[in-house]
């Protein structure tokens, strides 16, 4: 059983692609080999900046011979049939075998596909793998047509067993496979031949290449923590950075350097970000002072001066970088201490989106909405509005211009410098949250209000200009924004009807797009007041329209026509996101649909309360049976209503009841209806479901004993009206007609 070793040696592969590429090499090669009949015992893939390597142990020396038997025509069948069979099998007539079967003598063909040597199969599969490799980005070079991530220089491809080593004869685009490779670019000793994987790994190490990326990462982390520990310091963990750095070196050498005293006053996040983003340095913290005081850089080589020149160079580059950061920080603090008004003002000149106005316009809208939302979260309206007005100020700062990932965090520092209340500082940082499904949701009332307003403004804005997500395209991250709103509402148990806030904010967007700014503002005030009074838009625009004399701007009538649909469509988008969110938590989609069909479905907390109660109830035997009873009642009733062309909804009277089961159902409904509706009123959906559960037995007994469609028309109608009481009682929590089963 031979072992196979493949190395694809190229110019430097981007660090972020290496590990994935090694896995792809393994998968494509092993899939291809196995498909051709070459099984193996173990497979290992490796990557360094300059090579992808695959080692397969215990490969079959050749693919197995495959024998297949085919049954042909009867002996004595027409020649045409027999010739056709021979063509298909690739045989001649004298190779056929006659066999007796219960149906007489029949020809049988035995076809053999001979096995092929491993080398031939490997050459084919490797060529296919190289030519179709799934690099995220590939390129051509020189005069060739082959695509690889960077120029591919050599291919090592050998089969080895006790008898020796053979090169797999193979070439692609002029690169011929061989048995040689080379070590470190600067510390290696030129090309060398290898006889197998063990030999390969040993010779690479001799020539200063650690083949395994995990081993390099471990080496870096151990050395880094050791040099830090020796000085009473600790390295700030950063797994992403560690694996990136492990992909930038073949022979890692850890060097620790000082951060000049001048820079130790910078916020630790700034030091960390600047060192990581620009220089790929690790931060080293002093646990006594809790400051970042040193850095670790990882060189790709040893030198005769033990890295002194390299460290001095890195230190110099860092000095320049941190001088920039310090310059930004000091300028920013000066602006912040003066109240940061310059930043807020300058956002008026920054475009947010060409159809949605400037960042200043956006902040104005968010501030207004935040104020309206303050009541919902029981926050002080003035502080909330102030927080919203400051929340984006740091976007004008030099630091955030340089390091966009520090947005929000810098806002918190600058709010402190500006002497603003701590709620404002926290909201500056927290209003971006939650960013992803695992990100924490803020709970401080002011932060929650601004976070909601920010996201709702974005969503309504892009809905107003009809830039909704389609398929996989969501350039403005609107799905994430909607999920953010959902989590803010649910995890803080907030009660609010989203519709009102949609309308409010859609109006603000429309007013922004109106041509006559003054009139727009006046109308906006009127309409907003109407919304505040009546809750939702509905006919409010019409009322305003009636109140205004003379010609109306066209956009007001457009608004009347379009706004309710836009608002409804946006709510539908929220419901879709909510379904995805709840499904991940195990709530059935039909349960959610049944609850979305109820009134007040823009109150997400109420909606989810219903869904959880219904989901729980349907998990019980009572629930399942009641659902059956309800459906039966509802079907009979619906059919009768369709046939008779009337709605049976009122007037069931116990005096027309003939059967005991019928009377018992009247009694049960009399007893439960009140309880159910008051439980619903109190939003105690579980109790309401409990009330419905009590109807289950009487309903079952009723259907057991009674034929609804009686010959007596009075009795029939009375029974239909009785079924209608079941329908009403059971539809109070959710639309059970939408529940499956």
């Amino acid at each position, binding site marked *: 059983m031979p072992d196979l070793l493949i190395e694809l040696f190229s*110019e*430097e592969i*981007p*660090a*972020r692609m290496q590990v994935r590429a090694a896995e792809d090499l393994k998968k494509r090669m092993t899939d291809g080999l196995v498909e051709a009949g070459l099984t193996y015992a173990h497979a290992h893939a490796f990557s360094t*900046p300059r090579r992808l390597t695959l080692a397969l142990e215990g490969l079959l020396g050749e693919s197995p011979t495959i024998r297949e038997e085919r049954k042909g025509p009867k002996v004595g069948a027409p020649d045409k049939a027999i010739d056709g069979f021979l063509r298909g099998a690739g045989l001649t007539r004298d190779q056929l075998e006659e066999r007796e079967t219960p149906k007489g003598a029949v020809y049988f063909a035995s076809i053999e596909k001979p096995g092929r040597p491993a080398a031939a199969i490997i050459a084919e599969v490797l060529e296919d793998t190289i030519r179709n490799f799934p690099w995220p*980005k590939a*390129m*051509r*070079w*020189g*005069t060739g047509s082959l695509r690889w*991530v*960077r*120029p591919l*220089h050599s291919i090592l491809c050998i089969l080895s067993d006790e008898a020796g080593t053979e090169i797999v004869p193979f070439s692609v685009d002029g690169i011929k496979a061989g048995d040689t490779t080379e070590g470190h670019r*600067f510390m290696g000793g030129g090309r060398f031949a290898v006889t197998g994987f063990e030999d390969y790994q040993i010779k690479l190490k001799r020539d200063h290449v650690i083949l395994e990326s995990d081993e390099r990462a471990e080496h870096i982390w151990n050395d880094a923590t050791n040099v830090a520990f020796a000085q009473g310091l600790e390295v700030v963990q950063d797994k992403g950075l560690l694996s990136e750095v492990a992909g*930038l*070196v073949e022979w890692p050498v850890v060097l620790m350097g000082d951060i000049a005293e001048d820079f130790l006053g910078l916020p630790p996040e700034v030091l960390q970000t600047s060192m990581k983003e620009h*220089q790929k340095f690790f931060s080293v913290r002093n646990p006594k002072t809790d400051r970042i005081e040193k850095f670790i*850089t990882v*060189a*790709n*080589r040893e*030198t*005769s*001066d033990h890295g002194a*020149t*390299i460290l*001095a*160079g*890195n230190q*110099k*580059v*860092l000095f*320049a970088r941190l001088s920039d950061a310090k310059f930004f920080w000091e300028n920013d603090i000066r602006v912040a201490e003066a109240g940061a008004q310059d930043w807020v003002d300058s956002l008026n000149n*920054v*475009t947010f989106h*060409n159809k949605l106005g400037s960042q200043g316009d956006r902040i104005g809208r968010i501030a207004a909405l935040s104020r309206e939302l303050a009541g919902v979260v029981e926050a002080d309206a003035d502080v909330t509005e102030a927080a919203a007005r400051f929340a984006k100020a740091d976007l004008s700062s030099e630091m955030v211009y340089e390091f966009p990932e520090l947005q929000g965090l810098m806002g918190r520092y600058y709010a402190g410098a500006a002497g603003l209340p701590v709620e404002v500082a926290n909201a500056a940082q927290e209003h971006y949250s939650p960013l992803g499904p695992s990100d924490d949701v803020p709970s401080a009332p002011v932060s929650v209000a601004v976070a909601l307003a920010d996201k709702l403004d974005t969503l309504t804005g892009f809905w107003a200009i009809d830039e909704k997500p389609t398929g996989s395209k969501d350039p403005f991250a609107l799905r994430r924004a909607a999920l953010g709103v959902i989590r803010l509402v649910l995890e803080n148990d907030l009660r609010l009807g989203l519709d009102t806030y949609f309308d409010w904010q859609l109006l603000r967007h429309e007013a922004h797009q109106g041509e006559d700014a003054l009139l727009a503002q006046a109308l906006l005030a009127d309409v907003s007041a109407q919304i505040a009074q009546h809750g939702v838009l509905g006919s409010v625009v019409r009322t305003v329209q009636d109140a205004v004399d003379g010609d109306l701007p066209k956009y007001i009538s457009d608004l009347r026509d379009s706004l309710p649909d836009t608002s409804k469509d946006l709510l539908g988008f929220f419901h879709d996101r909510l379904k995805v969110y709840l499904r991940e938590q195990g709530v059935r989609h039909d349960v959610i649909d049944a609850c979305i069909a109820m009134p007040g479905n823009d109150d997400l907390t109420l909606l989810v309360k219903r869904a959880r109660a219904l989901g729980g109830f349907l998990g019980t035997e009572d629930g399942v049976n009641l659902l059956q009873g309800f459906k039966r009642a509802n079907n009979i009733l619906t059919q009768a209503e369709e046939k008779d062309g009337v709605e049976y909804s009122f007037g069931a009277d116990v005096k027309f009841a003939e059967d005991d089961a019928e009377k018992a159902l009247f009694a049960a409904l009399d007893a439960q209806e009140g309880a159910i509706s008051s439980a619903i009123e109190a939003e105690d959906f579980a109790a309401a479901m409990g009330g419905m559960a009590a109807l289950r037995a009487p309903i079952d007994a009723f259907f057991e004993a009674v034929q609804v469609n009686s010959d007596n028309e009075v009795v029939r109608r009375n029974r239909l009206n009785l079924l209608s009481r079941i329908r009403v009682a059971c539809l109070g929590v959710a639309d059970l007609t939408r529940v499956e089963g």
Partner: protein
Amino acid sequence: MASTDSKPRSFQEIILRLQNYWAEKGCAVLQPYDMEVGAGTFHPATTLRSLGTNSWAAAYVQPSRRPTDGRYGENPNRLQHYYQYQVLIKPSPPNLQELYLGSLEAIGIDMDLHDIRFVEDDWESPTLGAWGLGWEVWCDGMEVSQFTYFQQVGGHDCHPVSGELTYGLERLAMYVLGVDHVMDMPYNDPQTPIALTYGDVFKQTEQEYSRWNFDVANTDVLLKQFEEAEAECGKILAQDHIDPKTGKRIIMVHPAYDQCIKASHLFNLLDARGVISVTERQAYIGRVRALAKQCADAFVLTSAGGYAA
């Protein structure tokens, strides 16, 4: 010339060593293009010559202008006018990385003491409709060069592929010479009777251009010139390929491309004056790209572009 194993002593010595090195390696040492450009890539020796099938090897210094980077000569390493050293070889030779590393040794960087790294950095020029894959080259954590294999220029696939090397000369020289502020860097040999620093040569011009770029340049004139250059480029290329006077086939790609370069620089000036909004920016870049594309389309119809009649 100083021997390559001693350290260079001035900015100009570094340039001279690069010139000698690449001349020895077989490049035609060209002179800077005589127009204002944002980077060495704009020189027709790179942009146009990377197109078509003909082989090419050239090296040159290119003064480059980035009006928005002006800092009145105060910033230690930011300038609105600086020098790039540019090498373009087509087809890219298999040992281009080794050739490049040799050039670093030639300017006095000892490979045994320094840590040279090739860090992923894909290059794209939206104004030239060009992109390529490669690296920024780090020396002890500092970016010293850009190394790119051109894949597309002016919307055309490059075949064969050119290898392009771009050195930021001031930054590289400051590192090699151990200088912290660009203006303090010796321009010629400091031992010479009339020793000049980079500041002696350029400090005043940095101030003058910074003021002009940011506050004085007449934006109405610039806008008009942009429109004119754009129109002229199209007009030149719309001419009949056969010159009526000589009866020869003469496609005027280079004169047209000059107009494209002009438009690009005028856009940079307008940008520095802050009169181009975020949304307009994309539109201007698209207009310059359209010119570059037309020039590229025309160049591949010429003999330098590999066209065989």
